[in-house]
């Protein structure tokens, strides 16, 4: 019984982290239709910057991520402008954009190798070695702190998108660009800012990643499947959907690990995704008209 409860807690903690790595994709891929396959590479970039700040002046990874998020935001702006002028303006952008971002993925990996070497890097924070225990439950802060940060980040993004004018403009751009133009809003600018936000979330997710596990430059490749699976499972372009998708995969993976054997957990996760796609292609919380 406590095993079930603990598996549930673990699954939820993992889901928090999953949400952080995939919420950026929910924005860029789900809302802007940009297949940013280099997103995990930016996450790893965030990890390395957190590592650098931590080993240099002992800064906490999360503090580093927050301090650097404007820089990541700016990086996203620049990248989107480049992407837009090369692809979107010319039509048939999606596939070419895919190759473009593959290229960016490799270039980012090389930059990391040149700057930090190819070894595994980790950070150490005071709370990482602490575990809160409540009777039979235990709550390792190494996972709980990322969970809280991620929850804060996704919820505030959701509030931003649904409550502010700009946020609604982002949601609108996903549905009807023309209408937005008629209202006097520059859709390219809206998209650039939204893309900037998505890259900024990658920076934060990177800090969480290095708190949870050691990183090396090509680690991002392992996350490509996951970061795309979650938004698709939950419903494209919906942040609550991303949370749902992350929860399903996190809990499924935790339960498989506890009760059946961890070896099968990717098959369970991605099998669930295939099943969901076959039964409800628009995602669990997606809108049917897409």
């Amino acid at each position, binding site marked *: 019984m406590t095993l079930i409860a603990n598996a549930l807690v673990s699954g939820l903690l993992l889901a928090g982290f999953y949400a952080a790595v995939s919420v950026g994709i929910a924005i860029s891929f789900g809302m802007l239709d940009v297949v940013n396959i280099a997103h995990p590479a930016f996450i790893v970039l965030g990890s390395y910057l957190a590592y650098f700040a931590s080993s240099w002046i002992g800064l906490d990874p999360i503090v580093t991520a927050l301090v650097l998020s404007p820089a990541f935001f700016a990086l996203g702006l620049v990248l989107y402008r480049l992407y837009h002028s090369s692809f979107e303006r010319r039509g048939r952008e999606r596939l070419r954009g895919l190759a473009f971002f593959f290229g960016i993925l*490799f270039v980012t990996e090389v930059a990391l190798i040149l700057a930090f070497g190819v070894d595994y890097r980790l950070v150490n924070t005071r709370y990482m070695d602490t575990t809160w225990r409540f009777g039979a439950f235990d709550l390792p802060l190494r996972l709980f702190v990322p969970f809280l940060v991620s929850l804060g980040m996704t919820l505030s993004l959701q509030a931003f998108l649904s409550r502010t004018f700009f946020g609604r403009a982002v949601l609108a751009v996903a549905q009807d660009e023309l209408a937005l133009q008629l209202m006097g809003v520059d859709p390219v600018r809206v998209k650039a800012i939204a893309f900037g936000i998505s890259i900024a979330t990658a920076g934060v997710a990177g800090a969480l990643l290095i708190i949870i596990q050691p990183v090396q430059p090509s680690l991002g490749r392992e996350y490509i499947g996951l970061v795309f699976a979650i938004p698709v499972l939950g419903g494209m372009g919906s942040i609550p959907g991303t949370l749902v998708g992350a929860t399903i995969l996190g809990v499924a993976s935790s339960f498989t690990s506890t009760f059946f054997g961890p070896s099968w957990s990717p098959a369970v996760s991605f099998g669930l995704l295939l099943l969901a796609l076959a039964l409800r*292609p628009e995602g669990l919380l997606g809108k049917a008209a897409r």
Partner: protein
Amino acid sequence: MSSPRFTALVTGIAALAIVATVAGVRNEYFFSAAYTVLQFVVLASAWNILGGFTGYVNFGSAAFFALGVYSSVFLHNLVQAPIALSIAAGTGVAALVGLGMGYLTLRLRGVFFAIATLAFAQVLLTFVVNWEYVGGARGAYIVLPHGPPPGFRSNGQVLFAIMAVMAAGSLALARWVQTSTMGRGLAAIRDDEVAAECSGVPTLRLKLVSTTLSGGLMGMAGATFPYFLLYVEPGGVFSLSYAVNSIAMPLIGGMHSWAGPLLGALLLGIAQQVLQVTVSADWNLFLVGALLVLFVTVAPEGIMGWTRRRGRAREAPP
């Protein structure tokens, strides 16, 4: 040029090239490198039959490649099957799964289809890792019972010859698909599937043929891989490089014609082979990345599109 005559031409050139090299070249490196490049010609052509002609992006090339690889490993472990049988089996299995993928297109369009293929690759990887008979996570060793057949000096030469024939065959098939009535139907699907359906194009049947051919060819390329490496393990077989290359090569070459994947595979494949042994490791990866970014931004229709545009510009009166 009519299709049968073209096929004869391609086969003839391939046969000539093989005879010439097997007889003349003594450099084993040439065969390894050429094998790898030709393998990408097959993969890129295969991907393009679906991705380029119909617009359905297959992210799981590695999965179909792996189906071929592990069919061979399975048959080798079971009966020490000769390579021809392994190739037939690998092609067949991958084609069947390709057919299944075709039914997926009924419900999933665009990016959803791409994500589904990605998920399929992950599920298949998990199965292979847990299947001890084909080596599981530890990998499988292939020990060849005998030396190369008469007329060949080494195993590498044999594989090169087989791969050259397969590459020629894939190109011929791709060209046939493109120039036949089927090709026009596929192009109609690519441009607007609903409109195509309305105007009487048998979209489902065409898509099924296309996914089956595409999957089968990828499996065929994979089936020889265990004989080339003699040791295969899931990490290498499901490497990201297959998914990336089989998409990037047609993109760079041009996706609307059978020649595009060929050009792209030759260019990127040879570049990778050369870079690997000339520049330092970091710059190798960097150059591949930079090439990708550069090509898709500068030549958005691929090399084929680019040359065609140049040609048109020259023809146009001043």
